[in-house]
């Protein structure tokens, strides 16, 4: 039985999320940005499992399965888009894609 206080568990998930956020803000390479997004997804799923364990309900794990499915789809499509961008712009710099402005 795990007796770590619930606050510490959630804090841990939160710190993981914030690390992902920092990575998203700092990196310019699109692959890295996508990776940071993955970290954030993962930490969100972790919170669900923690809550499900705390409240003794299976819904937390069910939710995590759905998050997993969504993450998979999102990664697939995002990578396809990054491929297209790379073939058009010949670079993976996210600052290079700034045509949608005034």
């Amino acid at each position: 039985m795990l007796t770590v206080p619930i606050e510490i568990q959630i804090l841990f998930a939160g710190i993981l999320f914030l690390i992902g956020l920092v990575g998203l803000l700092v990196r310019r390479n699109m692959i890295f940005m996508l990776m940071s997004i993955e970290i954030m997804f993962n930490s969100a799923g972790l919170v669900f499992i923690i809550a499900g364990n705390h409240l003794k309900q299976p819904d937390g794990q069910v939710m995590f399965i759905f998050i997993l499915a969504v993450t998979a789809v999102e990664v697939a499509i995002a990578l396809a888009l990054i491929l297209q961008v790379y073939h058009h712009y010949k670079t993976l710099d996210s600052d290079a894609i700034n045509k949608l402005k005034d």
Partner: protein
Amino acid sequence: MTIYIALIPAIPLLGFLVLALFGSTLNRKVVGYIGAGSVGLAALLTFIAGAHFIKSLPLVRSYSVVLWEWINAGNLKADISFSLDSLSLVFCFVITFVGFLIHVYSIEFMANDEGFSRFFAYMNLFVGSMLILVMADNILLLYLGWEGVGLCSYLLIGFWYKKPENGYAARKAFIITRIGDTAMIIGIFILFLSFGTLNINELMQQVSVKWTAGSSIAVLTAALLLGGALGKSAQLPLQTWLPDAMAGPSPVSALIHAATMVTAGVYLIARTHVLFSLAPIVMTAIAVIGALTLLISGFSALTQHDLKRILAYSTISQIGYMFLALGIGAWSAAVFHFMIHAFFKALLFLAAGIVILVLNEEHDIFRMGGLRKKLPAVFWTFLIGSASLSALPLITAGFYSKDQILWYAFSSESGNSLLWIAGIIGAFLTALYSFRMVFIVFFGETKTNPSFMPGKQMTVPIIILAVLSVVGGFVELPASIGNIHLFSNLVGNTLPPAVVRETGHSEIMLMSFSAIIVLAGIYLAYMAYLRKPDLSESFNHSRINKFFEKGWGFDTLYDTLVVKPVVWLSGIDKNDVFDWMNIGIARLTLLANNLLSITQNGKLRWYLMSFTIGIVLILTYMICR
């Protein structure tokens, strides 16, 4: 019966409405019928009404009909009501009859123009407004007609709007007459404030009762109304617009700037003669202005090259005669001269229009010549018209009308020999320039050949007008010759007769003197322009010739005194407060746009950063509460 007089202005206005709405879809023939037919119908009605009126004299002095209430606001009441008395009858007759002839002429004159229906619509509107003006029972309705004819003058002068100079000429005419109109409306305000009524007859009654002769308010009001008359009738100092108004088609010049609109001032003064009689200073001013104008424009007409400009200056000069007559109290003489002048001036303008048209828009008289054999009908009618203009003794109507004015100028109570001398010099000049015109255009060798002959619709009206220019004078023969006073008897029902004082000279003597002067002028024109042209050559190139030709420098005077300062001031005032506010709003919006568009720089990480900042702010706010 009296309701029918309201149809006289209504039918041309109806014609205008039909042509304005449907003119572009109608066939040209139909447009011509409607345009000329409406004025012809009005002429017919005028004849019938006039016959009735003359039959019922002297019992009935005027017919009046009130159509409907126009304005009724507190003290201000004005109705749409018309009245026909002998003065209006004379004016209506001239407007409708001469107008009808000119409309028939225009059917052929404007036959190849693309604005055919627009032309007739404007002409009908003009005839309608002029009829409202002369038949109006209250002074506000008169002013409505006054403004209406001003508008139509603008529209018709600038009829060929594709050339910018025509637009400038039309604007110049409108602005200068506007100055006069403003003076007139202030005069109307004073009259209304003093008496509380707008009906002309009531006003004249009250004026004669309440205001004393020579009082400052009477002088002021009369002077203001005179200002309006000066603008419309192109007298000094507002005469500069008429020569430029010749940019319009010839029928327009004939109708508006010879026969009718420019005589609106004469009508106004004759209609309100009671008021003017109470201000002797203003009457003297009218006479002096008339005398000066006729001299100045007579000299200018002598030096012009453009055929229509000669006729324009001649019109200004002849209206000067009418004003001279009004100023000395010879009311019926002025109206008589108006009628005869309408006949021969319209004739001259129409004939000049034919000449210009068949010579392919050639206006310079020194490039015409020898048209006597080529255009015989035009030549004979033009000759008759010029003879009437010069007041050729005994056989032309112009002689009788102009001579009556000269006689009264000499012998009337407020007449003066100086005015008579001015009139005599004017008669000499008139004969000189009109026969200069005839000799240069119709005699000598042909410089430009006519490209086609005019048709019936153009020649029949001018023949009718030529006949009238000869026999029209026989309704008023002086006492020493035939003693027929049909005209003055008719008009005398509304206008008082001129008072004659005893002078040492008889009428016959003065008449023969003026006849000799006229013949001398014709002879001088014959010698200087036909037999020995080199006599006039040195004059043609002299400096004083140039001065006269530019209208005695009035245009440049007004340009430097008025136009340039106003343009300069408006240039300074270009960016005034309201402009600044409008532009300020636009600039502010642009500035905000530029500021806000910085936040949209297309960079992904910038957007992410703004998300994060937002989240931080919201969460901090929520925690700290």
